[in-house]
């Protein structure tokens, strides 16, 4: 295996000198994280709500506190002297609550009015409207003498322990990147070396096919580790993702990488032209990336797609990484990890057996 390490060292040196390699394995996944994370990651965040207290009494402050206690709002105070509508236009608030002067007194009479300005074209504004109405209803109930509401809504996320989109997305980006690099990248490299005659030259040296395949697998694992580290750092710094690192996460990352590298060696057997390598790699990798729960949870998919996902190796990598890094679901980690490891061993051995440097 000494020769595999010689080849690994050269491969890494070549990788760091290739701008496109570094782009696809580091810059591209980081961009994916930043773009999709910013677009979709904020959906669960607090809604901005402008609040103007023109009454300035304990009662009006209690109302503000009731809104704050819902935990749904990012409350922004508009000074009492300003025109609330103008201020919210200026600040870009889509929903504003105004407590008029004399609110406390009117409340005593049971005739208090709180004004809400909202923009029905904005989803968030409609949500804000409902929440504010809920707060008002509850206050009315309390004032009417009900000790506690007869019916309560207990809120829980469908995903365990309140997974945000970015929490879900981060392991998927890692899975996607290793699939792209180990499958498409490796296949392209193989086809290039074959068309340049480098494989033929290697066949005249003592390095064996297995050593060469092992080197390529190790190479992809190193790149996978660099990629995963970069993505995790971006996830933690930019989106506050809580990532757990444990041996299972590392096992699944390396198993997935090895499985895809092995798979690419199997496909390489049938790809002769350098030009068709990229197409063949993409034809396998892209549908797999979309159908294996990389971007969307599998639970939401129709039964047919669900069955397809079950035969895609990336599914187990994505689910396994998610279980190990985010949800800490021990049985899912072990199950997906075992499948990924089995695929890795099988594909690498098959890939080495099917690799052919020589012509017959």
């Amino acid at each position, binding site marked *: 295996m*000494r*020769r595999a390490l*010689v*080849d690994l060292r*050269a491969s890494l*040196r*070549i990788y760091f*000198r*290739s701008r496109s390699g570094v782009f696809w394995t580091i810059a591209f996944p980081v961009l994916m994280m930043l773009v999709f994370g910013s677009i979709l990651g904020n959906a669960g965040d607090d809604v901005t709500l402008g609040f103007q207290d023109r009454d300035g009494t304990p009662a009006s402050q209690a109302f503000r506190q009731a809104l704050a206690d819902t935990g749904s709002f990012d409350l922004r105070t508009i000074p009492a002297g300003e025109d609330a509508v103008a201020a919210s236009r200026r600040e870009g608030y889509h929903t504003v609550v105004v407590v008029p002067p004399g609110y406390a007194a009117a409340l005593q009479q049971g005739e208090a009015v709180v004004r809400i300005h909202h923009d029905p074209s904005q989803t968030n504004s409609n949500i804000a409207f409902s929440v504010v109405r809920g707060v008002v209803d509850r206050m009315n109930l309390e004032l009417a003498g009900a000790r506690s509401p007869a019916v309560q809504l207990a809120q829980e996320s469908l995903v365990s322990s309140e997974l945000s989109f970015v929490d879900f997305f981060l392991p998927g980006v890692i899975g996607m990147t290793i699939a792209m690099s180990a499958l498409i990248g490796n296949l392209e490299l193989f086809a290039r070396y074959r068309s*340049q*005659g*480098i494989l*033929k*030259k*290697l*066949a*005249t*040296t*003592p*390095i064996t096919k297995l050593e060469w395949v092992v080197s390529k697998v190790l190479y992809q694992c190193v790149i996978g580790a660099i990629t995963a580290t970069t993505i995790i750092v971006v996830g933690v710094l930019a989106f506050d993702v809580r990532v757990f690192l444990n041996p299972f996460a590392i096992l699944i990352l390396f198993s997935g990488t090895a499985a895809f590298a092995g798979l690419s060696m199997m496909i390489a057997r049938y790809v002769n032209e350098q030009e068709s390598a990229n197409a063949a790699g993409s034809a396998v990798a892209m549908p797999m990336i979309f159908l294996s729960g990389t971007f969307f949870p599998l639970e939401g998919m129709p039964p047919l797609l669900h069955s397809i996902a079950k035969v895609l190796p990336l599914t187990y990598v994505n689910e396994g990484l998610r279980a190990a890094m985010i949800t800490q679901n021990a049985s899912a980690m072990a199950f997906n990890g075992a499948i990924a490891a089995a695929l890795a061993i099988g594909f690498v051995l098959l890939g080495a057996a099917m690799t052919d440097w*020589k*012509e*017959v």
Partner: protein
Amino acid sequence: MPVVEVEQLVKRYGELSAVDGLSFSVEKGEVFALLGPNGAGKTTTVEILECLRAKTSGRVRVLGHDVETQASRIRERIGVLPQDFNTFDRLTVRENVRYFRDLFGSNADVDELLASVGLTEKADTLYLELSGGLKQRTGVAIALVNDPELVFLDEPSTGLDPHARRQVWELIRKLRAGGRTVFLTTHYMEEAAVLSDRVGIVHRGKLVALDAPDAIVRAHAGSTTVRLPAEPGLADRVAGWLPRARVRVDNAHLSIDPGDHRLEEVLSALASKATLASLEVRTPNLEDAFLALTGERLGGVGA
């Protein structure tokens, strides 16, 4: 014991026989060339010797080992410059040579190797940035990392400009001077003629001649002829002066084959008796031999 022994080598692809019953041997320390046009079966033959291709039938031994059962022992002791050689673009010349040296587990001095092929100044240049001639020289350095006894060079100067080609020839001469056996394939007549001790001419998978280049020419390409512009009646007069010469007229030129006259006799007869506007003494070469043997031209640029 010969370094290479080939007996009745056959390589078939379906119906096509790329190599059709070749037999030859290569002795230690010689430069041996397989000469023939593209598609004659040279590369197929050499790749079977390099253990890169499987043969259909025949017996092939390299350095005393069987190419099929003892390939790894052969590989350790041969150096190979494949046809259209390439190595890693984004490694420097030195890194490339070191890579192959390390694969062989050899302790050859990389800088010494680079100096021997004249690449010291380019040692830290990326392979990608080299000219064709320098790339070939890198390939020769790589072929030498395991200090091989036998070096295979498959079309080493194809695609190179005349200057770079001559530099590759210099390297081949150095290999021979260093005591290595060199197995060369080429479709350049001149390359085979100036470099090799013996040449095997291959045509459609068959060996049509096998000998020292001069001997092949003497045996198959006729003798030196003298050519001069034809004038009315000149042919008859020359025939009178040189009765045992053969005189032919073609393309408004007189072609005189001295027969058993000495060349000096022919030249002095012409000098004293005819008015010479121009005169050409033409020594036949391997190209002529190839034409005589196969009825076809080699077609190489150097021919």
